[in-house]
């Protein structure tokens, strides 16, 4: 450890600080549904049936494991299914693409077979519904109260010292040793896997428009043998989202939390397939001649940035300023002007990857636009 090393750490910190604090503007981009669902506007919420709920608590003492399965009544199983369904509906209504309604007729159906049969014979009475969303869940979770066993080095250090003895001083040489001990480390852990099948079934014509089955797992452990410093660092880098506020790293999540979070993860993928979705994309800026405009873009003041960049590029068009002008237009959804600005910038500097990326981004958006417009128009007309 020397001062040069400390200097290096300080410089790395400065760089990290700069990277962490410098905001890249985030632009909202719409992505069309992967499956054409433009004919479906009103979706009724059907039943999410339970395939299996298996929750067990295990405990180990003296090398003997005991397992206690937790019993869930049909009402409790239904509540779990409703929690999952609620998360799917939440995501489905996050953008005003579908109108989602609850209907007693579809909700009362016992399972998917009953739904498919009802649709195939057109035996439903509910009007103004285009499709029904239904699902099935499988849940397995276990909580463990267990013990790790390990050998630990325990340190003992008695420093050398001088002490008075029979009229003179004597030296105690001290003692410095490690003793290995076998230690029990109690731990608690939770592990859960949710399997979720989601189906969107159109009523006329009767067909399954989209169907997905996916599983997600979650595991957390508290207590036990402490990880080594290297393991702690690796775990910190690989850490997933925490499920709860407060002492979430120290407390295991409840089953409700586990189910809620895992279902969101699966449902998000399904909803992206059937519905128009929005995402926030970081867009890098070019180091233009107008630093104020750049600052304005970073904080989302696009109108004023456009005014400043249009003035700056009117007389002496700097390609970086033209590119930044394109970013402003893109952020405000004016893709025609954005593409023009990006092209002008690229004409002046054909080697610049950033400018080419801008063109590519907008061209992709424009390619998706007819599909997006068709999908959004189908909503406006309704």
């Amino acid at each position, binding site marked *: *450890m*020397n001062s040069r090393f*400390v200097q290096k*750490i*300080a410089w790395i*910190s*400065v760089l990290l*600080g700069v990277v*962490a*604090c410098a905001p890249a503007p985030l632009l909202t981009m719409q992505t069309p549904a992967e499956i054409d669902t433009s004919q479906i506007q009103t979706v009724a919420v059907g039943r999410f049936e339970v395939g299996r709920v298996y929750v067990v608590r295990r*405990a180990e*003492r003296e090398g003997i494991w005991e397992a*206690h399965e937790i019993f869930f009544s049909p*009402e*409790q199983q239904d*509540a779990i299914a409703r*929690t999952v369904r*609620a998360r799917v509906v939440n995501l489905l*209504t996050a953008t005003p693409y579908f109108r989602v*309604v609850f209907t007693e007729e579809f909700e009362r159906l016992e399972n998917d077979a009953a739904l498919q049969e009802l649709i195939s014979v057109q035996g439903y009475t509910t009007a103004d519904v285009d499709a029904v969303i239904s699902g099935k869940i499988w849940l397995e979770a276990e909580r*463990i*109260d267990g*013990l790790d066993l390990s050998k*630990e080095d*325990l340190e*003992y*250090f008695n*420093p*050398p010292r001088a002490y008075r003895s029979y009229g003179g001083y004597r030296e105690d040489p001290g*003692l*410095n*040793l*490690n*003793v*290995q*001990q*076998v*230690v*029990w*480390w*109690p731990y*608690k852990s939770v592990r859960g896997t949710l399997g979720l099948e989601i189906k969107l079934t159109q009523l006329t014509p009767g067909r399954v428009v989209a169907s997905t089955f996916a599983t997600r797992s979650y595991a957390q452990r508290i*207590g036990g043998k402490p990880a080594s410093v290297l393991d702690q660092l690796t775990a910190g880098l690989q850490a997933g989202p925490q499920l*709860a*506020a*407060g*002492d979430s790293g*120290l*407390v*295991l999540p*409840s089953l*409700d939390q586990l189910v*809620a979070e895992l279902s969101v993860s699966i449902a998000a993928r399904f909803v992206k397939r059937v519905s128009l979705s929005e995402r926030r994309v970081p867009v890098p800026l070019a180091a233009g001649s107008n*630093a*104020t405009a750049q600052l304005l873009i970073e*904080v*989302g*003041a696009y*109108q*004023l940035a456009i005014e400043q960049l249009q003035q700056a590029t009117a007389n002496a068009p700097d390609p970086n300023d033209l590119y930044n002008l394109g970013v402003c237009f893109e952020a405000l959804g004016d893709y025609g002007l954005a593409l023009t600005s990006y092209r002008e910038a690229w004409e002046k500097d054909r080697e610049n990857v950033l400018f080419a990326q801008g063109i590519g981004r907008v061209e992709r958006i424009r390619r998706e636009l007819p599909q997006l417009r068709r999908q959004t128009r189908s909503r406006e007309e309704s």
Partner: protein
Amino acid sequence: MILRMPIFSPNPSVTRFRLFAKHTGWGVTLCALLWGAGCASGPAATFEVQRPAKLSVPREVRKIFIRSDFVEAAQDRLGLKAQVLARLAEKLNGLGRFEAQVVDHLDENSLNPEQETVAVIQGEVVSRAELDRGQFTDVATCTGGIGGRLSAIGAAAASKEAITVDSWGGYICRKGNFKSNLTQAAFTQAFALAGLSGAPPKNQVVRTYRYRNLSFFVQATFSVTVIGPQRSTLAIRTDASQFSRRIVNQSSYQNVQEVHNIVVTFLGPVLRASALPTFPNLIRPAALAERSRPREVFYGSASLPDPGWRDLTRSERATVLNGLVEQTILGFVQTISPYRVKVEAALDSGGDAEARALLESGKPLDARRRLETISQEDRSASNWYHLGLSYEAGAVSVEDYEDARRFYIEALNRSSSSRVYAQGVGRIERFLADYRKLRQQMEER
């Protein structure tokens, strides 16, 4: 158990650790300062702005009936349904867009949809809490000597660590972490400089302690249905919030195995007489920290209990549950009603000090009056910015926001590299974009 070769000299690792602590201490302080300087902002003015609802409810709808009889509560273990519904009604009424009331029953036949369009809220409340008890093990390092004891107590106090006292020399034992170890190294060094002691004696112990983990979960699903000439479900939304806390009883810490005892009781004479390693050790109590093995089984056949008053006082429980209810209904409220949010804007360090103080103390109109007495020619960039902030914080009309934008631009013209001034412009541009949507919703009232 294997004993390693005893080293009859002061522990060199102590010296190395001191050097490391010295350099690392400076490095960490430097990094913290740089990070702090990079990201921190100065004092801020806080004010409320109105945001549009995420969903437009038809203008005819003024009355909202929250139907208690249609809110499922079979899984509401904490009995929060009444509280959730009352708070929802209170919140919606407070925002001014709707007149909401909780009703136990509603005879929909008595409504005249041709004359009045109303909305009905129904849904489900789920709540649960559990108490998970257990025992954990840790290894603590005990330090002796005056300096060692004082520095251990200081480090433990600084990082709120539990301490125990070893049974032999009254050494102070604590588990330690990166921060507290650095603190202890700093204390030790300070005491060494004061001539209190050299390298302190050390004795590691295996300890056990008891903990209680509490977790609360509240989830509310609401749908709003408009009953008018046509009946339609407008929004369905589920939100959940959770809270968890670990409570460790400080008096539950116990030293269950101490190295010193092993050394003195079993091996001390051998070690004192010989510098050779001694193995194997067949004395079982010296090899096993037997008392670290828990006797109690915490996951039995019974379900985990609810936290009682010993785990959380009545007032703490009420605070936690109020917070969870508030958080749970927030998403639904913001979906159907325009809502107010607090915005924090950084104050500039320059400019008229009194105006800045007025903004900081939440008196934007007084700050505005004061700043407007300064002639335009004499107004510095900071004063223009604070004037913009006073208009934004005290805005009652869209013109106030437009004026605020104008003043922020004036400030930016005078100091074009200021991120704070640019943020003001960006904030207003976003507000004006929101405003169009908000106006549409408010006109629908």
